Each structure stands twice: as C-alpha cells, then as structure tokens.
C-alpha cells in the first residue's frame, strides 16, 4: 500500500492557508465597503431629496399663507357667515312649530266642542281640557284626533283622562292627554 506524502514543510502550508484567508477577508471587506458606500449614497441621495422637497413645500406653504392672510378681512366675513348659517340650520332643524299643533287641533275640533285649557310643556305632550255639548261630539273629536293627517299621524296617542257631565248645563267636561308624533311639529 502506497501513502501520499506531502513534501512541503508545515510552515509553508500554514502560510499559504493564511494568505488564502487574508485574500478572502480582503474580498469580503471590499464587498462590505462597496455595500456601505452604495447604501450610504442611497440614503444620502434620498435624504437630500426629502430635504429639498421639504424646503420647497415650506416655501409653497409660506406663499399660500401670505395669500390667505392678505384676504383675512374677507375670510372673517365668510367664516362668520358660515358659522351663522350652520347654527341657523341647526336651530331650524330642531325647532318645534307649535302653530302646526294649534292649526291641526282647530281643524279637528267639532263646532260644538271648545277647548278651555291647554298645556304644552314640551314638543311631545299636550294636555287639553274642554267642554263638549254632548258625548257624541266628544267622541267625534276623539276620532278626529286619531285620524291620519296627510298619511302621517299627528298624535301618537290620544288618552281621555276624565269625562264628567255638568248636571246644570248638560255639557260634558273632558281632560285629554295627547302625545305628539315624532317630527309632527317640524316643518
């Protein structure tokens, strides 16, 4: 059996290995440097572009601001008008048109029924006291109140609280509670 025998001295072999490693490291260092330079350049270019964009925008914003400031007198009027228009829209939208309630009631009160007292504490409730010549007229009034008005209910509930006959006059006194339908008092 033959055996390979290295004739090179051990030191030479080690030196060669060290040189090969050193060459490899140098290559790696060049690659690293090239990467760092490319990365740095990229970052620098991008960062410079951002800074220049920022500066352009600052100038443009400054220019627009001075234009706006030169029209501040007009803007004050426009802002004031806008605020008032919005506030009025809100006020009108939430307003209860109680004239609608009185008009609706007067349309539905039969001729021989009269309303004596009315309390409207809010846009939802109405308490009515009145006098009717007869029970039939009162019944007609109650039916009228429950009627649909242009396909929409004006009163959600019509509650007869009390009815009493006045023996002396023969008239019927009544108390009613009405619940106004949501939105019925809006225009």
């Amino acid at each position, binding site marked *: 059996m033959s055996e390979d025998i290295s004739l090179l001295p051990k030191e030479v072999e080690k030196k060669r290995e060290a040189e090969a490693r050193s060459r490899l490291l140098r290559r790696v260092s060049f690659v690293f440097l090239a990467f*760092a330079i490319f990365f740095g350049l990229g*970052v620098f270019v991008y960062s410079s572009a951002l800074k220049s964009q920022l500066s352009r925008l600052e100038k443009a914003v400054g220019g627009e601001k001075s234009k706006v400031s030169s029209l501040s007198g007009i*803007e004050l009027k426009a802002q004031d008008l806008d605020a008032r228009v919005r506030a*009025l829209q809100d006020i009108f939208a939430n307003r209860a048109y109680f004239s609608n309630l*009185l008009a609706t009631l007067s349309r539905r009160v039969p001729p021989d029924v009269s309303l004596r007292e009315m309390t*409207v504490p809010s846009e939802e409730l109405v308490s009515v006291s009145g006098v009717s010549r007869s029970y039939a007229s009162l019944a007609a009034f109650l039916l009228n109140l429950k009627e649909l008005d242009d396909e929409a209910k004006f009163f959600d509930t019509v509650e007869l609280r009390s009815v009493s006959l006045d023996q002396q006059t023969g008239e019927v006194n009544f108390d009613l509670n009405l619940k106004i339908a949501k939105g019925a008092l809006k225009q």
Partner: protein
Amino acid sequence: MRLSRTTGLIFLVGIAVLGLSVFQVLSIPTNQQKIKTLEDKLVVLRQKNESLSDILSEIKTIESNLEVVQKALPTTDEVPALIMQIEQIAKTSGLTIQHLGFGEGKGATTPKKSATGEVAKVSLTTVATGSYASLQTFLKNLENASRVVNVTNFRFSPSSEGEGEEARGLSITLGMEAFYLAGIESVTPETPLNLDTTSRDYIDLIRRVKALRVYRPEVLE
C-alpha cells in the same frame, strides 16, 4: 486570526460609512412625516385660497347675506330689539302682552356676547291675553320673524279679566328662546373655510332667512 492593516482599514471605513448612513436613515421618517403634514397643509391652503378667490368675486352678495343672517342670529343678545319684535308681533296678531320675563338677567341693557363659536340663548317668558286664533297667528308670525325665536312651551286657560267667556279670552303663557352668536374676531391661515355658497343647504337657508319678516321700530309707530 489577524486582519491585515489594509483589510482592517477597509472594514473600519465601511463601518463608519454605515454608521453615518444609519444616522441619516433615522431622520428620514421625521422628514417624511413633515412632508406629509406640509402637503396636507398646502392642499388645505390652496383650497382655501381658491374658496377665498370665489368669495372675493361675490363679496357683495356675501356681505348682504351676512347682514340678513345677522338679523336672524345677531352677534349680541339685542334684548331691546327682541322685546320690540315680540311686542310688534303680538300687536299684529291680536295678543296683548301683560308681562315679559327674562331668564338669567338677560333683560339687562348691556348687550351680552356669546363665547365665540357657541350659540347662546336668551330665555324669556311672555304672559299675554288673547284668543285661540290670535295665539295661532302669533305663533305663525313668530316662526316667520327675522330674529329667530323658538317657543319651547306654552299654556292657556280662560282669562279672569273681562265679563263673559268670549270677552274674557285666554290667559296665555309662553316660554321662548332667542339666540345669538358672537362674531368671529380672528382667523389663522390654517383655519379651514367650509363655506360653500353653491350648496343646496346654504341656498335654501339664505332663501328662507330672506323670506322672514323684519319688524322695525317705525312699523310699531
């Protein structure tokens, strides 16, 4: 393992370049955020300038609309004018005012200003006498009066004055609210301007306010 001097130097330079780059990278998000903010601001400012140019071209109309709207919603409580309006409406509607009461001392003669941007209210109670029909007319007229006044509650009962039910009429108590809004005293370029004079809501409101009836002192005389 030892690095050669050149390799070490190259690594050092690379690390230094990377370090500087990382330092630069850290400032990028801040600058991007600044750019985003400035771009948004620029868009708002350009839109505002466009709106202001449009408004400038119709400034006469804007001023006249503002005048009309300020009658409906004045800058101060304007209590004397409010009293005059209510009395005038009552008179034309057939009601006789017996008493006018103001909430929170709002009847004071020094005009009060609302905090900017907030609608302030003047609460008042009116006691009057009249008929059902005159109350109905009063409410209708009040709803169509130039100074916006809302009725919040009311009640009526037979009046104790006069003889006979017809002659006595009704004793009426109404709770009402009038409104005012302080004028805007200053604006910054950044304040957004939302006034759109072409919108349906704006046109409808101006038309509606213009149709309201103005009660002037001379009408009273």
